[in-house]
């Protein structure tokens, strides 16, 4: 299949995914678009929102649409790492001898919904680190690879803090995107109510499979990025570090600590996918700016000065984008 046909398939698949999800989820178009970008780019997504806004429903619907093995882990304080990864159990073989056999946990799926991930203890949360980054599980010294494509879509509730354990920075960094699922509008609420009067079940149909997702990922990797745009993204990440000599005023004033290099990787990988979804064959500044919020918001921490001025992380990111935009076409981004 030539590239043109592949690109057409890419666009068609994305449209189909969106249409199918729309059957089960009212509104939240941006969230759906970003989740699709992350899935094609091979990243994990953390969905944050108050209860009932459709986080879990979105992921369940996605599991149906993608025609991939799907598992759901409800994180609770008493959840153990082995409950996630699986464990060795002692069994008798046919000859009656005792042997240990690895019993796979729910993580062995292609699409994993980690529901209310911040309710599990850090010990259990850390069991996710290797899985999310390296797509493999090591139990008792033996490593088990996960089948591709593999994504973790986690949800967390920002309001309920009792009995929760904030995710460690290392784990937060492993989420490509953090998406804030907002409260629906009045019209959307009405649509939700009308839709759920008919059935509470997801009605979306499978439209793409794992192979298609992997093919889309490979196609997106070919999208070219000019050095100016690449350096624009790198500068944006670098600007989140107040300790760096070339960081801007915003970082020095409002940021406590900045993003890891994974943010840079996420920018380019996700921007390529976004460009293709937008019908372009190259990455633009617009892609970088649009992806700055989901990529940066969980990787940087604002300081008390920002809180004192009642600025949110997204407000600071807006300031960073404005600051960084001055470098566009200024010659400062020359490779």
């Amino acid at each position, binding site marked *: 299949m030539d590239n*043109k046909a592949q690109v057409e398939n890419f666009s068609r698949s994305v449209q189909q995914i969106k249409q199918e999800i729309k059957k089960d989820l009212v509104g939240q178009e941006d969230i759906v678009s970003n989740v699709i970008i992350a899935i094609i780019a091979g990243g994990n997504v953390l969905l944050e929102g108050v209860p009932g806004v459709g986080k879990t429903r979105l992921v369940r619907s996605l599991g149906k649409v993608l025609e991939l093995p799907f598992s759901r882990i409800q994180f609770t304080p008493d959840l153990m790492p082995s409950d996630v990864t699986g464990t060795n159990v002692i069994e008798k073989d046919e000859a009656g001898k005792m042997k240990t056999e690895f019993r796979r946990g729910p993580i062995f799926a292609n699409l994993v919904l980690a529901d209310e991930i911040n309710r599990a203890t850090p010990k259990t949360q850390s069991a996710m680190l290797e899985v999310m980054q390296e797509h493999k599980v090591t139990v008792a010294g033996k490593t088990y690879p996960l089948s591709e494509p593999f994504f973790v879509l986690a949800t967390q509730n920002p309001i309920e803090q009792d009995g929760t354990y904030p995710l460690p920075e290392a784990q937060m960094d492993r989420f490509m995107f953090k998406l804030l699922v907002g409260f629906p509008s009045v019209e959307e609420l009405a649509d939700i109510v009308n839709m759920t009067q008919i059935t509470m079940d997801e009605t979306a149909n499978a439209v793409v499979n794992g192979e298609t997702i992997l093919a889309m990922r490979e196609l997106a990797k070919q999208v070219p990025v000019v050095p100016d*745009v690449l350096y624009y993204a790198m500068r944006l990440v670098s600007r989140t570090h107040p300790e760096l000599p070339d960081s801007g005023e915003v970082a020095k004033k409002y940021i406590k600590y900045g993003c890891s290099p994974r943010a840079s990787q996420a920018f380019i990988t996700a921007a390529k996918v976004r460009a293709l979804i937008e019908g*372009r064959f*190259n990455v*633009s500044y617009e892609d970088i700016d649009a992806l700055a919020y989901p990529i940066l918001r969980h990787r940087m921490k604002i300081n008390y000065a920002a809180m004192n001025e009642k600025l949110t992380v997204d407000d600071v990111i807006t300031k960073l984008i404005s600051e960084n935009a001055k470098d566009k076409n200024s010659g400062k981004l020359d490779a």
Partner: protein
Amino acid sequence: MNEQFLKFKKRIQIETAVKCVLAGAAACVVALNAVLLPCLLNGVHMLWVWYLLIALGGFCLGGGIAFLFFRTDDKKIAARLDSELHLNERVQTALMYKDEEGKMLDLQRADTASALSGVTKLSFRNLALTIALAAVFALGVCALPIVAVYASTDDGGQSTQPYDPPREVTDWEWQALDELIDYVKASQKADNNTKTGIVGELEALRSMLVSGVSQNSLPVFVQNTVSNVRNTVRDANEAEGVQEEQKTRNSEEGEYVVKRLYEIFSLPQPSDGNTPDTPPDNTGDEPPKAPGNNTGTGELIIDGVPFFDPEKGYVSSGDPEVREKYYAIIQNAMLEGTISREEWENIVATYFADLRVNEEE
């Protein structure tokens, strides 16, 4: 994509050239006005080549600075197209990977070509600045003839008087004036008051001549000195106790000095019949009297202007032999570089114009 890009590239290059030429032209007329006005106001007349060089220099400087400021290359052109036409870095990407092969790159190039083909207009960047440059150029061009006409009056339009060149006092004139001062000092005819007054006026005239005078101001200075000498004599004669005979002697002395002043500086002398032709006293070494160079009509007669010959003393400039001899001396002095061409011109124009005419014929 290449054709569309080249089309826009050509358009932007023309735009850059227009800006550079306008900046150069504006700088050119500004430089011309800036140099022309003060130069002409101060009476500095330059060769046209200098004006040409100033105009050329202004053009090169203005155009060069504009070129440094507005110069562009393929990358900048691509960035501008992307920015102004909202092409989301399509052109920059296509340009960056123009020599590379790849199916995705082919698609990208086709996409860029498609995006560019729908564009027909590109805005003129820095339009306000360009209009300002054009306005400066237009104003400068309008100002040039005004400045030229204004300045062509030589004194910057302050008066309609013709140019007044400096008047060089010749060696003979210096010597004759000094001798006249010495004569008055040594004279026994006038009383001391009269002598002191006349000497003071003559020395004042000498000081003014040292500081430099123009062709037109010299007669005025001499005429002032003449008036002052006469006033001095009148004052002296009006003093108490001066005998009538002394008064006459004072007057004769004063008129003699007046007559000599006219002769020395070859000025027309008002004819009042009161001027003695000979010095009232024979002091022995007084300069010979001039034959009279005033026709009463303002016409200058120089034939009678005496020359001082170191060997013969004063000789008459009306003598053809003498005139030819001194003309030859001046010619040689000019050829040897003792005197400048300009000094030679002045001397010849003053004393030997007839000989020069003959020579040219």
